[in-house]
């Protein structure tokens, strides 16, 4: 027990600071991917709701494919795929060997593209649960399209989407553990490093689990607050 405390302490021998830094990386890459996915999701949801036939078809293909293919494969595609683009360029400039996006960028891209499919479904569902009459009332008051979107549609959709977005965020957080395969030192990768260094895999992976659990609990609390705050006036 005491050993474990020193091991994760902040002393010169301690892994504490490294694990915390890794946790910050996990949150950062997950948040970046979540944001990217949110942007993608809005576009794809818009294509599904208001697009013409080819756009709708593309959007449907995108969501079906990305919800059916393992995230791990998408991460490999982004990591090694970027290498396909970057390596020849780097070699041209005299850099030898395999060059790819840094793990952070590849991971963010992969998480963004995967979560975009889930975002899109959440946003689309939220849009259809908004009462059409409330949107029509805005038109009838003479609100121009953008104003109506900003003041009425967006807030109403956001309120309906918030619980679903909370779920997507939790999913993204947990999927981010897979980014360790790119070598990005997030929680999982740091735990691997620690366990091979100390030969105490259980201790390190358990610590990783505790860190993830802390993050998911905290973000659950935050989303609950947000939901509470933005659901005022809901029946």
């Amino acid at each position, binding site marked *: 027990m005491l050993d474990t405390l020193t091991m994760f302490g902040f002393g010169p021998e301690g892994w504490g600071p490294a694990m915390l830094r890794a946790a910050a990386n996990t949150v950062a890459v997950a948040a970046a991917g979540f944001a990217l996915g949110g942007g993608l999701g809005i576009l794809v949801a818009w294509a599904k709701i208001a697009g013409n036939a080819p756009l709708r078809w593309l959007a449907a293909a995108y969501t*079906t494919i990305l919800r059916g293919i393992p995230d791990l494969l*998408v991460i*490999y595609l982004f990591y090694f795929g970027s290498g396909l683009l970057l390596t020849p360029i780097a070699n041209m400039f005299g850099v030898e060997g395999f060059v790819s996006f840094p793990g952070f960028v590849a991971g963010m891209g992969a998480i963004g593209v995967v979560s975009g499919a889930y975002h899109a479904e959440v946003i689309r569902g939220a849009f259809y649960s908004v009462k059409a009459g409330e949107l029509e009332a805005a038109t009838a008051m003479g609100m121009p399209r953008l104003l109506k979107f900003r003041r009425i549609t967006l807030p109403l959709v956001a309120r309906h989407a918030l619980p679903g977005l909370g779920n997507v965020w939790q999913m993204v957080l947990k999927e981010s553990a897979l980014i360790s395969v790119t070598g990005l030192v997030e929680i999982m990768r740091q735990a691997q490093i620690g366990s091979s260094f100390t030969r105490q895999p*259980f201790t390190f992976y358990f610590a990783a*689990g505790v860190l*993830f659990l802390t993050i998911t609990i905290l973000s659950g609390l935050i989303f609950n607050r947000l939901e509470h705050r933005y659901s005022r006036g809901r029946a």
Partner: protein
Amino acid sequence: MDFEFLGQTFLKLLPGIPVTLELATLSLLLGACLALAFAVIRVRRIRPLNWLVIGYVYVFRGTPLLVQMFIIYYGLAQFPEIRNSFAWTYLREPYWCALLALVLNTAAYGSEILRGALLSVPRGQIMAAQACGMSGFLLFRRISFPIALRQALPAYGNEFILMIKATSLASLVTLADVTGIAARIIAETYRPVEVFVAAGTIYLAISYGLILLVRLAETRLNPDQRDPAPVARVDAARKEVTP
């Protein structure tokens, strides 16, 4: 895109399909049994198991599957007690470790789905069963569970798809499932696009097959929502012969 390479890759990936399918089927079946037990414990508030299940679900849904799998496969080896026990025959094998992690993981998610479904069974229908003299396990088996199952099926279908995707993590504990083979080919050839397309197609095909199965089950389980047309046609035909 190099179609010849794509075809070769596809062939190389085929041996991974049984591994993926087996992991998915076994973990879903075993996981569903555990999930049902957990759900009943939660709904019936069987103390103190109730609290254990709440904690279990919280932890397994709050941490990544990869962490769970690594704790089981790499982590447990840290303890000599385990290494010397009979369980080691299984726990040293990546296959059983991956399966165990998948089962425990899906049981947590599944129990929440089933719990929600059990709670959504209308009180009135249960009271009607009680009025007929049903109670206990009979009532559960004949009334509550079938109604809950129909309720749970769409969400559980989703869980099926997620589990097929989740089996790919087994490749990170050295198993040669579809993703594991794909990763090896990518590392050997540096041709991620073709490999992604080939492996992705396989996963999509599996998911699609599963969706069809779930749909089939849904129509089988919900005869009232089935297309009534054939019955109507029979009626119409009968009317023609009656003067």
